[in-house]
């Protein structure tokens, strides 16, 4: 497959990254594997002894697992929407970022659903979801949505990888024979012929058009697991868009962090420039403002309306003896700090932005916890239970172990995928130093023309 000099240079630049499996990579893999093994042991305990090993009880029936589920699956939707938009709008500067967003989509769409399965008391009956499905249940909607979304996002990632696989195949990389063969199979005979290009770009555009609304739908359905119940703090019409925005926002943060890490480890300064950080920073700031607006609307209407049941949850969230400090943390670092850091020219630098993104991602995880647990701790009928575990949820070590196993898997998969494909997609790269006029002679058609082609 033909490549421009710029693309060839990009490949050579990243060659080391995918050819060599350094000692350091081995050590990190082992490190993550240990966490996953610990999680595996916790899972064994949970299966053999029942959910009694978790902190979940009859009042707080869901805990860390569902928090992680919302968190990871949110990252996945964000990755799909971001990469879909970048692709569809044909944003030139964002081309090096698409792969990163798609890897995030793929890894988190694997990790996320694992966590909701951990909430299920009977693993041996999971097939009941398919043999006795009840379409009225938001849970069934979610199963269907996530499965559809999983297929869609895998296809979308693969489509955008085909050209790169062809490049790797032709580049005679210094990798074992099985990998060369795998690249060859995965490239499905792509040679860059005009008809191949046309078919590929149409497929990609179609998938991008499908995956963006699909992500929004799936994210809303996820929120409806909570929104469709009658509970205060959940039963809210704002929940669909709130979750979509929250997903997009936290995903933007993880994307910035991933960019920062790969830039450092793989020396990709040339591709992940300050401009990328600042642009994504702006996007993060806008999303922060939107998220802040939704959060404010949610709390303010409940507080002002002050219905008894709603107020109980609001009181818990803002009472320093209960969740007050966490609420402060979640909203300070989840909303205010990112806005300020990006808004001030002095801190609008890549390290500052990444730092803000890092804190924001943690804050948004905490925020998900604050959505789930305080509501479950506030039943309509007085709890009047004397068993401490039933009154207040405290996560146990198996839950934490499985949480960290999920995070470790996320990092490990991210790392290993980057050993198999280049982090910066090679075949779609364009030399930013070339003038705008020369760009139009490039082989890739602008999206609008492709749409007409469809």
């Amino acid at each position, binding site marked *: 497959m033909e490549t421009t000099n710029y693309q060839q240079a990009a490949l050579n630049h990243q060659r080391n990254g995918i050819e060599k499996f350094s000692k350091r990579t081995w050590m990190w893999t082992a490190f993550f594997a240990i966490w996953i093994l610990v999680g595996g042991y916790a899972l064994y305990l949970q299966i053999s002894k029942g959910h009694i090993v978790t902190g979940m009880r*009859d*009042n707080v*029936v869901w805990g860390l697992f569902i928090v992680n589920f919302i968190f990871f699956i949110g990252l996945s939707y964000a990755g799909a929407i971001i990469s879909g938009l970048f692709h569809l709008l044909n944003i030139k500067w964002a081309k090096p970022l698409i792969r990163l967003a798609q890897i995030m989509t793929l890894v988190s769409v694997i990790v996320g659903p694992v966590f909701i399965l951990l909430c299920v008391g009977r693993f041996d009956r999971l097939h009941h979801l398919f043999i006795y499905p009840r379409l009225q249940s938001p849970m069934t909607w979610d199963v269907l949505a996530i499965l559809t979304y999983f297929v869609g996002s895998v296809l979308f990632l693969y489509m955008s990888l085909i050209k790169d696989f062809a490049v790797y195949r032709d580049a005679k990389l210094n990798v074992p024979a099985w990998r060369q063969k795998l690249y060859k199979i995965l490239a499905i005979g792509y040679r860059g012929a005009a008809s191949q290009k046309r078919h590929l770009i149409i497929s990609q555009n179609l998938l991008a058009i499908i995956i963006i609304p699909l992500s929004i739908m799936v994210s809303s359905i996820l929120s409806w697991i909570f929104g469709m119940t*009658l*509970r205060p703090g959940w039963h809210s019409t704002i929940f669909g868009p709130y979750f979509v925005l929250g997903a997009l926002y936290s995903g933007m943060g993880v994307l910035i962090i991933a960019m920062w890490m790969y830039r450092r480890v793989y020396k990709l300064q040339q591709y992940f420039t300050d401009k990328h950080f600042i642009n994504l920073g702006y996007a993060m700031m806008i999303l922060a403002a939107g998220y802040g607006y939704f959060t404010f609307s949610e709390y303010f209407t409940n507080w002002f309306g002050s219905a008894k049941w709603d107020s109980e949850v609001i009181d818990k969230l803002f009472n320093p003896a209960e969740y007050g400090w966490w609420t402060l943390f979640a909203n300070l670092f989840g909303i205010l700090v990112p806005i300020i850091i990006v808004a001030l020219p002095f801190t609008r630098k890549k390290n500052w932005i990444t730092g803000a993104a890092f804190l924001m991602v943690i804050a948004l995880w905490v925020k998900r916890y604050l959505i789930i647990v305080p509501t*479950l701790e506030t039943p309509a009928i007085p709890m009047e239970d004397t068993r401490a575990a039933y009154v207040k949820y405290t996560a146990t070590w198996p839950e934490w172990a499985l949480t960290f196993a999920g995070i470790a898997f996320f990092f490990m998969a991210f790392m290993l995928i980057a050993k198999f494909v280049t982090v910066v997609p090679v075949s779609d790269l364009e030399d930013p130093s070339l003038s705008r006029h020369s760009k139009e002679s490039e082989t890739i058609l602008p999206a609008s023309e492709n749409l007409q082609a469809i």
Partner: protein
Amino acid sequence: MEKQENLDHGRRDFLKTITAVAVAGAACGSMACSCNSAPAPVEKKVKLLSPDGEIVEIDSAYLNHQEHMAIVSKLEARQGIAGKRFVMVVDLALCKNARKCVSACQKWHDRPEDTEWLTVKLMKDSEQSAPYWFPKQCFHCDNPPCVKVCPVDATYKRQDGIVLIDNDRCIGCKFCMAACPYSTRVFNWSEPHILPEMENLAYNPETGMPAKVGTVEKCDFCPDRTRAGLLPPCVEACPNGVFYFGDENEDTVTNGSETVSFSQLIKDRAAYRFMEELGTKPRVYYLPPKDRQFPVERGYENLPENLKDRFRDIMEPSKKS
């Protein structure tokens, strides 16, 4: 004992009349023959369907009469009892938190002390209002939020108004528990303790026996008893006749000692349903705690300490701190 006889009699009648087709395995699976104790024959023959499909006649004394034997198929347990609309009325003026209903429920359903399908809460609606005892079981809502959200149809609404759970189907996702606004449902967080004689019982949603780990359960209005024409144990056990149970179609409810017209009772006593505003349409009505028979303290003074703890913040607000 008399009730037991009644139940057995009902079963015998049933078994005599059923055809081989209708048996469908559900009954014979649990009606295990136990000959080790060898009691004296009473010469009362019972016809049974053997596992091989043959009708055999056995002396009644040789049979192990199971209390919780499913007498219906799973399909019938899904449909409910034809022509019935079960309803309950709870007279809050009569409750003194004797907790006989709670223990009777636990005994009948073979559930441990911690598992309260039926529980008695102490309600205090506002700062100034007087606290009152509030027995609470499943409300068997006509618009049940729990049934709406079940992804596998494990919990369902029957034509007789009962909301039941099939613990053979439940995957334990707990969505129903999150959806129920009344905290009615409980989960088997670990392997439940089961009496040895219950272990081999064929499970049926109507009996809910034996309990299964990793699944959700709740008050079931005891359909196995109502099918046999008996009252739920909570109704029978209450020393004050707090619970009226009956059939809305017949417009009759009884607390065991007196039988009254359901519509008249809820009209005369200004019955209400808990949190009507949620739109769940409960099948349990409450008679307001007006002209109470007992001071609220009567239900508190003699409680063991661990139970007192539940209500301490209302009963002894000064001691709380």
